């Protein structure tokens, strides 16, 4: 009969296994966690409903470096990164999530969705330092914007001047496990329609298929005074969705399916700097689905002295949407902003920047004469004229920063045909006792008027008081109290509490 092991023996064996059998670790691991709690309430402009936000957001991050056990910056390296997020809003009413209560039902609303922000394995410096890769859920940033997909990316960097990358996978979209719809093209209201009748919210399109995506980029590498990147990306949708959001003659619903373009865009960005003179840069995006340039900007900065920089910028933006969306055909001209800017860095601690300019929109037709012009025009080639509408935009930012904290001020002034928004904040951040405690104070005053809704004009005064405490370098707890006062809401309060923890080297 076998003799039962005593707890002491088990403990000794466990200790032995934990020490003698543990391999030498060649990697660094870090784990961090963050919890944010936000409590606030706001009311509909009509007085009801009252929306209660009881938000709890938790993030858990993991980073593993030097998985191959070679902590040498000049050698190939392998690492892993992951970040998981729970985004709960426990102030929701269950009726808002149930199709059985259509008077309150909001399609797509979830109480506590869980998403994997990223999780990828990354290798760099392979094949003599020229090759790198990423596999998993990852984020990209280039001239086309900030985007996320599940798949693989390969990057090849020539010893000088050029790097090429190519990737393929599936766009991150909601309604699949551990996803968010943040990265999908806009203009389409999508989600799982599992319990929804077609006649109920037909504009809420079903989404359950993976969305194939691929792209490539060509960029500079190792160029110190010039950086640039050309990028191309195509994403497809494969879901079967209703076409017209209205029933057909028989009362049925027509559908569309198969692979089709969700977005297909190409773009580029370049930035060149001459340290003695200044910098120039620009960016442009061409939408291959719409066959038109949808975004472009260009700017120039001159370093007049080491302290003073002046510049000018042009920025054009036309809202664009998913290929499934009709909204692409309602978005005509977009907006173009012309802006001048100056920045004076009086010292390493104090700097101030001011900008001002015009935001212009060219109408497709003269709004004042449009009706008569259309009536008189040849339908095949309407001559509708055009007109310029402009708003003035300006901002002022100043900051005094020290090792112990900062004082920052911001001012905004926008005025024009769309009304105005003007005001400013002063923010004070301060660390005391070697950073063990920190304090935050903000006071702001804003006044606004929407020309379309003058009854919603208001002047608002708000202050924020915050406080935080650190336990070592790895843990921090903070709380903020926010109090806003204006004639629309009376008094509104918001409480934010944050707990941050970190374990690792």
């Amino acid at each position, binding site marked *: 009969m076998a003799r039962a092991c005593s707890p002491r023996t088990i403990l000794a064996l466990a200790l032995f296994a934990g020490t003698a059998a543990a391999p030498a670790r060649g990697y660094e691991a870090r784990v961090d966690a963050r919890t944010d709690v936000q409590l606030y309430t706001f009311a509909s402009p009509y007085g009801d409903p009252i929306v209660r936000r009881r938000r709890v957001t938790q993030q858990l991050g993991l980073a593993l470096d030097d998985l191959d056990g070679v902590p040498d910056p000049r050698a190939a390296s392998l690492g892993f990164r992951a970040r998981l997020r729970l985004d709960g809003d426990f102030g929701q009413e269950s009726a808002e999530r149930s199709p059985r209560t259509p008077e309150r039902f909001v399609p797509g609303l979830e109480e506590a969705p869980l998403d994997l922000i990223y999780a990828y394995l990354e290798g760099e410096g392979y094949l003599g330092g020229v090759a790198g890769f990423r596999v998993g859920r990852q984020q990209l940033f280039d001239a086309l914007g900030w985007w996320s997909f599940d798949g693989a990316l390969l990057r090849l960097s020539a010893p000088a001047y050029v790097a090429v990358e190519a990737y393929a996978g599936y766009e991150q979209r909601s309604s699949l496990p551990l996803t968010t719809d943040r990265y999908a093209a806009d203009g389409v209201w999508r989600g799982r329609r599992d319990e929804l009748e077609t006649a109920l919210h037909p*504009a809420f399109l079903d989404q359950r298929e993976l969305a194939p995506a691929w792209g490539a980029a060509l960029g500079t590498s190792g160029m110190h005074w010039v950086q640039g990147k050309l990028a191309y990306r195509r994403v497809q949708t494969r879901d079967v969705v209703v076409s017209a959001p209205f029933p*057909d003659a028989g009362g049925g619903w027509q559908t569309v399916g198969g692979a089709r373009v969700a977005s297909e865009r190409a773009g580029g960005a370049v930035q060149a700097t001459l340290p003695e003179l200044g910098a120039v840069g620009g960016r442009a995006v061409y939408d291959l689905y719409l066959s038109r340039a949808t975004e472009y900007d260009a700017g120039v900065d001159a370093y007049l002295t080491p302290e003073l920089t002046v510049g000018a910028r042009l920025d054009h933006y036309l809202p664009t949407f998913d290929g499934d969306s009709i909204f692409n055909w309602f978005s005509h001209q977009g907006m173009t902003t012309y802006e001048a800017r100056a920045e004076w860095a009086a010292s390493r601690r104090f700097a101030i920047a001011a900008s001002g300019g015009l935001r212009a929109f060219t109408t497709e037709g003269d709004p004042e004469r449009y009706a008569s012009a259309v009536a008189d025009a040849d339908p095949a080639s309407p001559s509708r004229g055009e007109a310029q509408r402009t708003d003035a935009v300006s901002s002022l930012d100043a900051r005094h920063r020290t090792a112990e904290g900062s004082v920052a001020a911001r001012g905004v002034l926008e005025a024009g045909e769309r009304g105005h928004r003007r005001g400013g904040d002063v923010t004070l951040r301060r660390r005391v006792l070697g950073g063990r405690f920190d304090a935050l104070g903000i006071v*702001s005053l804003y006044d606004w008027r929407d020309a379309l809704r003058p009854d919603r004009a208001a002047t608002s005064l708000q202050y924020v008081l915050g406080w935080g405490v650190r336990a070592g370098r790895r843990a921090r707890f903070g709380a903020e109290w926010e109090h*806003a006062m204006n004639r629309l809401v009376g008094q509104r309060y918001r409480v934010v509490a944050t707990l941050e923890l970190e374990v690792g080297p």
Partner: protein
Amino acid sequence: MSRARAHGSPRGGNHPAAGALLALSMVVAALLGLHAPGARAAGEASAAASSGAGLGAPAEPTPASSGEASAASGNAPAASDTAPAASGAPAAAGPLVRGLAPMPGGAPVPERWRSPGAVEGDGGPSPVVFPPQRLTIRFNHRLHVRSLGVPCTGCHERARTSRSARDSLLPPATRCDACHLTDHRDLSEVTGEPEHHAAACVFCHVGYRPEDGNRVARMSVPPPRLRFSHAAHGARNIGCRQCHGEVQELELATRDQLPRMRGCLACHGQQGPARGDAPAACVTCHLAEASGRMKTSFAEGRLVPPAWLHGAGHGPDWIERHRAVAAADGTLCATCHQERECAECHDGRVRPRRVHPNDFLSSHPVAARQNDPRCTSCHRTQSFCLGCHQRAGVTLSGPDAAFAGRGRFHPPPREWTDPPRGAGHHAWEAQRNLDACVSCHTERDCAGCHASREVGGRGAGSGGAFGQGSNPHPVGFRSRCRVALRKNARPCLVCHDPRDARLEACR
């Protein structure tokens, strides 16, 4: 009597008024501290000022006429900004005013003698990279190098072999003994030839007084926050002057002769073979975290790039400008930033105060119409915005049954939606910034009027129309519709019946 009492501090606290005064003084001190972020302890302030931490004044102790600055520190001689008191110096030498500053009399250093990359008004090297120093030695480099012929490595001999920036390259005090006729072998009992004026402590040690005995002011030259090998650079025949400028022309060498990044990049920023083994990556020189990212946070502050480096100067409005740099070279951002930092704003769940001002919940409709800041940089309008607007009952679609009939959100129909299209018609706003419309409206709201009359096969002749046939297409649409239809026909079918003859024009 304690020193505090001697200076009149209310100590002990027996009297109620004293307690109140103490509490009041603490509150005042706290408020002053809160409103004076740059305030430091006096000793630190003196060190920072003398090292150029603020506006770039180099670390030169300045001559003064009295020795009072060191009197308050008790037994330890302070690192005084003053020259040795004339009364404390041996009679033979006269005033010891040379070697207290880079140039006689504190004159500015000519630009050609400064470190490569240094420019007028640059404020000296970064105090975060090269922390403030506390120089308590009077030393004349020009005299030693040019007049006496001592090479740099005659004193800084460890520069030949040093492979770490943490190595101290300052010569040991015994290096001075042979010429100055001193004996520093036992630092607890330093001696000097009494008849030789250059052997007196005060000849080199700033602020020294005879009553200080064997104690001199401590010198502090913190190691730079860099990875640097003097040996590697020396092996490539890079001389001292190539990084430190013309120190042999100066008297006191200060932080101002330490290298500037702009000077380093003269070699490290070269392209191709010219660069050799000097990569331009930030962590070639700057300290790195375990993750490989650059370490940017230090006690003296945070390292941020200058404006001339990739146009990435992190000025007060940087958050509004960073897109241009990130789009051209996102890897530059990744040198210091983790992607979670991007996500905290661009996919955040807590409103970032640096982006949205206070009470943005009330004022956001006006900002959204101006698209300032650009909403879609962080928000997907047909989920983030629409979901909240539906919950608040301000949308046309959604749970309108419960909230219908409570008033109109937009201007009256005769102005906003009815034909003919006047100056206040919604079409102009839609053409301009459709993102604002899409934050509340779904496609069904728009298709109700803009769909063709035959949509769904229920045209006027077959029981009623859903669409009003109001054409929303932009000028030039005909030339582009063929491509769009081929790539994705779905939006066409939202408003057009599949048999609609107008679709044929795009096929």
